[in-house]
């Protein structure tokens, strides 16, 4: 094979073959389209929009309305509880919606076949999807919304939250969202049906808490309780006697396992 004098043949070997190029493409999908600001806006409205409504607008409305017991206002949850509860519920749904179809569409359209007829490793194909979505989701959903929420709560309370604790709470959210990302990606590789992927993804995001209520031990080994734990961590009052590290550790292990299954499954798939 001849090459132009200034062109050099890419000598990358093994699982990294094609990763850089694919990652650029995945990042372009997030950052060179309207996706990043649309997602930032949508999930911002859902979480911080409601936060503003409950923290700022509701007390204003209550103040001007007659016959409302002002004492009831004090029973409303604080900003930290509101934001982390909303984020813990809404962001996993966001991850499922954003990631579903990312592999199945490529299989259906034939673009996966096209890409993999080039010197590209299948591991790189799956990793590029994971890393590209992870960056996009963490920036638009977690980092952006958390910064806004931190500012809003500061303004509302007149004093900043302890930054270290806030970062730990956000870290719990990150671990939880990476779990859903790897779960959906694994399902995308193993199944060719969007319905199955959505059912399992949304089912675990929405039904996880119900499962924990039925089988409390699941709270120790799944991410389903993490959305309840994160505000407690931020407020510096984790539940006594509850090993917070256990569901975190087990969620990380499950996420890595899902990712490995996705990679192995894709390596064995006929395209």
């Amino acid at each position, binding site marked *: 094979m001849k*090459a*132009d004098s200034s*062109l050099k043949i890419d000598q990358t070997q093994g699982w990294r*073959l094609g990763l850089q190029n694919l990652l650029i493409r995945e990042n372009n999908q997030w950052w060179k389209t309207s996706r990043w600001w649309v997602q930032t806006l949508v999930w911002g409205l859902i979480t911080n929009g409601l936060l503003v409504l409950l923290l700022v607008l509701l007390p204003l409305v209550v103040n001007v309305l007659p016959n409302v017991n002002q004492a009831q206002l004090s029973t409303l949850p604080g900003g930290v509880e509101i934001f982390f509860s909303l984020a813990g519920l809404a962001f996993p749904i966001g991850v499922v919606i954003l990631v579903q179809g990312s592999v199945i569409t490529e299989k259906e*359209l*034939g673009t996966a076949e096209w890409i*993999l*007829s*080039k*010197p590209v490793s299948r591991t790189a194909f799956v990793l590029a999807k994971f890393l590209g979505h992870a960056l996009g989701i963490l920036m638009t959903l977690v980092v952006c919304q958390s910064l806004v929420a931190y500012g809003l709560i500061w303004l509302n309370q007149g004093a900043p939250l302890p930054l270290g604790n806030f970062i730990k709470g956000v870290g719990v959210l990150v671990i939880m969202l990476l779990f859903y990302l790897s779960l959906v990606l694994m399902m995308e590789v193993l199944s060719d049906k969007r319905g199955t992927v959505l059912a399992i993804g949304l089912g675990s995001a929405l039904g996880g808490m119900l499962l924990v209520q039925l089988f409390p031990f699941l709270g120790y080994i799944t991410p389903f309780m993490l959305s309840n734990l994160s505000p407690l961590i931020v407020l510096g009052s984790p539940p006594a006697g509850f090993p917070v590290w256990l569901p975190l550790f087990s969620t990380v292990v499950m996420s890595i396992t899902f990712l490995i299954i996705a990679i192995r499954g894709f390596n064995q798939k006929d395209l």
Partner: protein
Amino acid sequence: MPSADHVIQTHHLTKYFDEVKALKPLDLVVPKHSITGLLGPNGAGKSTLIKLLLGLFRPTDGSGEVFGLDIQRQSPEIRRRVGYLSQEPHFYPEMTAREILRFTARFFYTGPKHAIDERVEEMLAMVGLSDKADRPVKGFSGGERQRLGIAQAQINEPDLLILDEPASALDPMGRLDVLNIMSSLREKTTIFYATHILDDVQRVSDRVMILNQGELIAHGPIEELLSPGRDVVYTITVEGDSDQARKKLETLPWVAHLFEEPNNAHKRWRLAVSDPETAKRDLLSLLVSFPEMTVLSYGRQERHLEEVFMQVIAGANHES
């Protein structure tokens, strides 16, 4: 043993999808610098074979080598030296032709952007898409998409170009364009392509392989398949009572087949003969020796690939 003269070699390469035998144990060899047409009806296993060679499918059994490299264990190395155009090329619809080619080139090359862009320009010019380079491909016609497919397949100047039905979705002009591009690449690369358009194969190929129901039923240089050593076909139109003559012909050892087609008030026979010399000497005199039948026309047909194809497919189906 892989040979330096062979680009593709398979040994009992097999692919089953559950109960469906898409490719029965296949042994084939594709020599260097050939244009090999892979023929077969729909579902014959052409695309399956191509996908196995590219590592897109995993074989059920058997093995294969491309450039002497194992198709399972060394697939990425093979794909560095191969250009592939799928049956219906699909690209990211929001990308322009230039972006598609730049993206493809980055899988093969590192280097400054201007060098990549030079290669991209060269490919766009080769397939006549320079003026449409900055249009998103979602607005491309089938022909333009196909040409872009050839450009991306050729971007790494591959030693082997694998094309799956490169002209099937095109109008006659588009087909001609694709065939001309293939002919122009003949000097630089080996081309292995699947098609069901027999005229195209006869026009540009040196070798032919015919697959049917997952089996290789005929292969060889095209002139050998069309050679006079094989069956020759006579077309004869007769009127009157031809039963006796037909019965006589069917008993002759050098008559391979006799197909009778009604032709208005006449009958048209297509007579395949296995001994062309005897037929040339005896056939006409035999026909005119039946007084109750008149020969209206008589001629020896040039052999076309279509005829060979129909014969081997019919023969294979009959045997199975």
